[in-house]
């Protein structure tokens, strides 16, 4: 059903939060995706290289530790430069430092070029459903 689409998964920057990453990988695999999990402490370059290598349909960036705003800048441009103009990019976790107004946070990350931005505590199922929709793997009507 997912035609074995690949998702690159990783935790960006100096971030070592490994638990959510482990669960996301499991959930994506259960949903039928191939997962290229580059794990924690992942650089922007590692995300892009993994996407190129696996011909990925999407990049899922996690940032839990608060520096997401600093770490994620430039990822979209670097991807474009590498020829990944149309790759889907999602980001989720605890993206900024502290408890901030979510609308503002979402906007900042959308402005950085992310297609979807998820607040703290998002359950994997929700984002996987979005992904299936964005990849045209499910009928929009149901």
């Amino acid at each position, binding site marked *: 059903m997912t035609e074995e689409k690949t998702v690159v998964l990783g935790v960006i920057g100096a971030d070592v939060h*490994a*638990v959510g990453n482990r669960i996301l990988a499991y959930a994506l695999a259960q949903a039928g995706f191939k997962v290229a999990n580059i*794990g924690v402490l992942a650089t922007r370059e590692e995300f892009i290289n993994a996407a190129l290598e696996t011909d990925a349909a999407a990049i899922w960036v996690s940032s839990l530790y608060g*520096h997401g705003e*600093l770490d994620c800048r430039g990822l979209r441009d670097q991807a474009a430069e590498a020829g990944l103009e149309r790759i889907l990019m999602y980001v989720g976790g605890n993206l*900024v430092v502290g408890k901030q107004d979510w609308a503002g946070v979402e906007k900042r990350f959308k402005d950085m070029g992310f297609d979807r931005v998820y607040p*703290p505590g998002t359950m994997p199922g929700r984002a996987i459903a979005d992904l299936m929709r964005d990849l045209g793997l499910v009928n929009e009507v149901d």
Partner: protein
Amino acid sequence: MELKNQKWPADEFFSRRREVLAAWPTGREVDLDEAVAYHRRAGAGRSMAALLDQARTSGRTLAQPRAGVALLLDQIELLRYLAAEGEADCLPATIDSYTRQNRYAEAQAGIEESRAAGRSMLNGFPAVNYGVAACRRVVEAVDVPVQVRHGTPDARLLAEITLAGGFTSFEGGGISYNIPYAKDVPLEKSIADWQYVDRLAGWYLEHGVTINREFFGPLTGTLVPPGISHAVGVIEALLAAEQGVKNVTLGYGQCGNLIQDVAAMLTLPRLAEDYLERCGYRGVTVTTVLHQWMGGFPADESKAFGVIAWGAATAALAGADKVIVKTPHEAVGVPGKEANAAGIKATKQVLNMLRDQFMPPTPELTEEIAVIRAETTAIVDKTLDLGDGDVALGTVRAFKAGVIDVPFAPSRFNAGRLLPARDNRGAVRLLEPANLPFDRALLDFHRERLAERGRVENREPGFQMVIDDIYAIGKGMLVGRPR
């Protein structure tokens, strides 16, 4: 120099020191003799060791928050607020994650962006970038002892700067600040780098200044069975003692089942003292710290208060010397000062109300104590064996063999084969003990406890149970029951 558990000779230490201090410009500010004089002038009121001692003898539990922001003046204001309004008994500077990975240039950028944005863009206080004098301003801003809390595999420069900067306690160890906090750092390296930190603390002691060394008990904070974290704590205590450290605090991350947690807190100092004694280290003072639940929190602030208060109650009933406090913002982001103070106040109310209460011994508690003792002893003894009596070498080999295995750790030097899950009363057990050196009785114990839960839930214990348990507290439960 090859890794071994042996006190570093002075020349070795001082020749390494030159490299360490050269890694960032602020390293030049460190002058050990001047630092010792500074600490002596500051006196016992700033000493974490003295405060812990007092807590221990009076049966009191100290409350300490986490707290770190990018800008110096904000850090000072934050600590003042947490002492005055939050009633914190001791304070930290929690270090940001770039500094923890020795990425001082990125930390510098974070400081500058924070200045520009008018809010902290870093998740902690970049002490190395600020240097010795700034650290002293932080320490002097409050009347209570201040500790460095971080998660740095190579914390040598951080230790040099902050200890010269007047901090009297330094958290971390070669295992506990590597395995949960790094991906690619070999244990040979992190243990050696922490021998350096311990040697530095030992040097201060030899010059009349007691630096308290605390080990990071919770590890990954997520369903770590007490036997594993206790073994790591005992090993780190042995490694520190060899370098001349005489004041250690062992930590434990609350699991949530009262009996298991009390048993863990009661066994922890006894086990450390036993091994220190057995390995010939005399005169080491051991205290304990309980971390309120370190895994995923509920996003709802009222529910978070429930988790916090239960952690405080556990600390009090278990007689912890110190408790590390979470905040109602835990699930969302680094807390502002009000949320941080709120967590401390809720904690202190409970600590004070339970100050004169304790968990009386019961057969259940005695059993749990026996289990934790047996587990810890099995792991530490096997580790010593593997190192032919050398605990440093043994540790490297033990991790390679999966004799020590930390659940959910990001490090590739951790086997990562073990899976924990809660039993029917919420105690953390082993679903997949992998290569832990446990005897049949222990393995049966774990299997039976999980089988019991499986029967109640009418499902085979498996990875879904683990996932359910990871989410459980965040969803308002302890045991992740099937829906």
